[in-house]
């Protein structure tokens, strides 16, 4: 499905991101966060393939982020914190997944929402542990033992995010192409038929859920290491809504969609917030409404259609 377009766009997009990050140091920060969020949205995409929408996925992102914030004072090594963030995200995903994989549609969404709000409330209320709404500042990090200057550290984080984005993108492509991935679409259309064929739907969904939680945890660790400050807001339901927003904005048709969506989202937000501080949310909402009503395939859908028309 549009293989050359996907590969070409991925290479082109990565190059463009590097160029922009080089030209404007501050946008490098914004783009690193966008790439990190894109990884989390990639997880949302998997569930969307199964027709399920999680309105609480920010809980995994927050888990990864708080893992980094909690452990950094004792163990400042970024290259260990990153996999640990992913690991804790995955572990929570497994526990929650065993429970929510039994539910479908609106109940699936609502349960995810409720569980993420439980996490949010705990992060907000257990002040002695989490410093409440103020959040925790992430202590100084080391990279392979070295403590690089700020400028270099920003580049390392950007490179890590870009590398992981490409890696997870390829992984998700391969997974969606595999029988396990194909079965996800079966859950969306006719789940019972899937089970008649002997495929355990619950296990298929659970696997996708845990994988998406792992990506959420990774994204959270990246966000924490980039912004160097974590707050409970990361787990609030509107943050989860944003992730689903980005998935639809980018388009669910390709593993590139989440990253197209995340970059577009962050740039619209940044420029809208700078221009009209009081109405940036309205602009984002308008964009989302327009995409759903007039271009349900998202940014990826628009690009793919243009490519096809030309070819």
């Amino acid at each position, binding site marked *: 499905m549009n293989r050359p377009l996907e590969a070409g766009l991925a290479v082109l997009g990565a190059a463009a991101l590097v160029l*922009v990050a080089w030209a404007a140091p501050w946008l490098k*920060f914004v783009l690193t966060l966008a790439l990190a969020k894109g990884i989390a949205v990639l997880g949302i995409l998997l569930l969307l393939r199964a027709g399920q929408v999680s309105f609480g996925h920010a809980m995994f992102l927050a888990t990864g982020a708080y893992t980094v914030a909690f452990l950094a004072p004792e163990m400042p090594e970024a290259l260990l914190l990153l996999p640990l963030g992913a690991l804790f995200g995955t572990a929570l995903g497994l526990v929650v997944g065993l429970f929510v994989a039994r539910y479908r549609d609106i109940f699936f969404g609502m349960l995810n929402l409720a569980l993420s709000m439980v996490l949010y409330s705990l992060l907000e209320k257990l002040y002695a542990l989490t410093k409440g709404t103020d959040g925790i500042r992430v202590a100084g990090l080391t990279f392979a033992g070295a403590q690089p200057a700020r400028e270099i550290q920003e580049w390392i984080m950007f490179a890590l995010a870009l590398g992981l984005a490409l890696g997870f993108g390829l992984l998700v492509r391969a997974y969606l192409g595999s029988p396990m991935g194909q079965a996800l679409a079966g859950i969306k259309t006719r789940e019972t038929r899937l089970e008649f064929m002997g495929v355990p739907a619950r296990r298929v969904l659970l696997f996708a859920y845990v994988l998406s939680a792992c990506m959420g945890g990774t994204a959270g660790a990246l966000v924490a290491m980039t912004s160097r400050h974590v707050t409970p807001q990361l787990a609030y339901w509107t943050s989860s809504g944003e992730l689903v927003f980005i998935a639809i904005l980018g388009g669910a048709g390709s593993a590139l969609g989440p990253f197209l969506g995340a970059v577009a989202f962050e740039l619209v937000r940044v420029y809208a917030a700078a221009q009209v501080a009081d109405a940036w949310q309205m602009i984002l909402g308008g964009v989302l409404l327009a995409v759903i009503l007039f271009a349900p395939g998202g940014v990826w859908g628009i690009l793919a259609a243009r490519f096809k028309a030309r070819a």
Partner: protein
Amino acid sequence: MTHALTRRQAILGAATSGSLLFAGGNAGAQQKPAELKVGICTFLSGSASVFGVPAKQAAEMLFEEINKAGGIGGVPVRPYFVDEAPGTDHLVGEYRRLVQNEGVHIIFAAISSGSCLACTPLSDEMKKTTLLWDCGTQRIFEEGNHPYAFRTQGYGAPEVLAPLLYLLKHKPDFRSLAVINQDYAWGRDSWEMWKAGMDALKPGVRVVAELFPRLGATDYSTEVTRLLASRPDVILSTSWGGDLVTFVRQASERRLFERSTFVLPVAEASLQMLGRTMAAGHVIGARGDHWNNHPRPKDPARLAKFVADYRARFNEYPIYPCHHMAQAISAMQAGFAKAIAAKGGGWPNDEELANAFRGLTFDTPTSSITLREDGQGLEDQIVGLSTFTDRFPFAVPKDMVIFPAAMVSTPVGQKSVEWMKTLKPDILAQMPAAIAG
């Protein structure tokens, strides 16, 4: 298409902002800039905006005044306002944007203690002089060294200790107390200090309720019921802004003010909005000495002009965040003047600017403030009892005590909570006499 467009715009934007950055950077010899850019973090939305917006108005008024008088060192000043309300993680991004994208020369941060705790380490990293213009948490300078950060007003320890001493003098026989503070750094830290000081100076007070409603909560009816039922002699609340207004309204409607003596160290900024709803006879503070009825201001003409100008323009009295903003601006003027003089008229780089602030003394309309070697400012505190006069349509203090900053501030190098634990009752004897007001 959308995407291609945004990316093209982004690159265009990047190119311009990149060049801006190079122009505003601090590399090499310092050229006098075309304008002095000041990043200001304040609440522009949410319930705390009742603090943030008046402070922003005061800043705009004073910046205009400065520019009319020829700017700072001949350079016009320009504010860049940033909203604290969307949260700490958003604010650290905005701080980076101000430094890396807008190329600001100095930053004022912030109202919330949470914001300040997040921004000060950034000032170390980005080597950008940052004036903590309103937040109160004592942890900033007690838990770390921040060579680029300075607080141009008082802070938690004196702002808690002064009302505590006042209460001990005014109502020495109270036996039970309840606390209701906002659930974030300031609410928690101020209670920890109060508790340490109270246990040292008056052991055995029973704490009947410790309530920490969410910052920005809008309904306190359950909390008010609980306070009514537990009948404490004293209710302490260091809450501020819209939260305090809502709480006082709901408490006064249900006659809680008749049952308990309130201690409200941050009341000043909410009294105008409360008007006659505020009850008389309760302990009120202003996080400093800037009351409208200050009994003996250092520069009465300057105080009168500031209040009159502000009232003429915004049709309300300035509240203490306006004074804190004015203090930060006075400090900025004095700091730049000192740095420029030290360089023989040349424009200071980031490090030279920061050095100028250490030990700096600057005048405020009500007194003068010195920045200690750790960066903390020493500001006097006035505490009194709420009363109504013919002069103001809202409560003001009477029986005011002016606490000298040095008496109620934690000595450099000590931690406030530990210091409070070592207080001895004889500190009450040092308290200046009350002024009727």
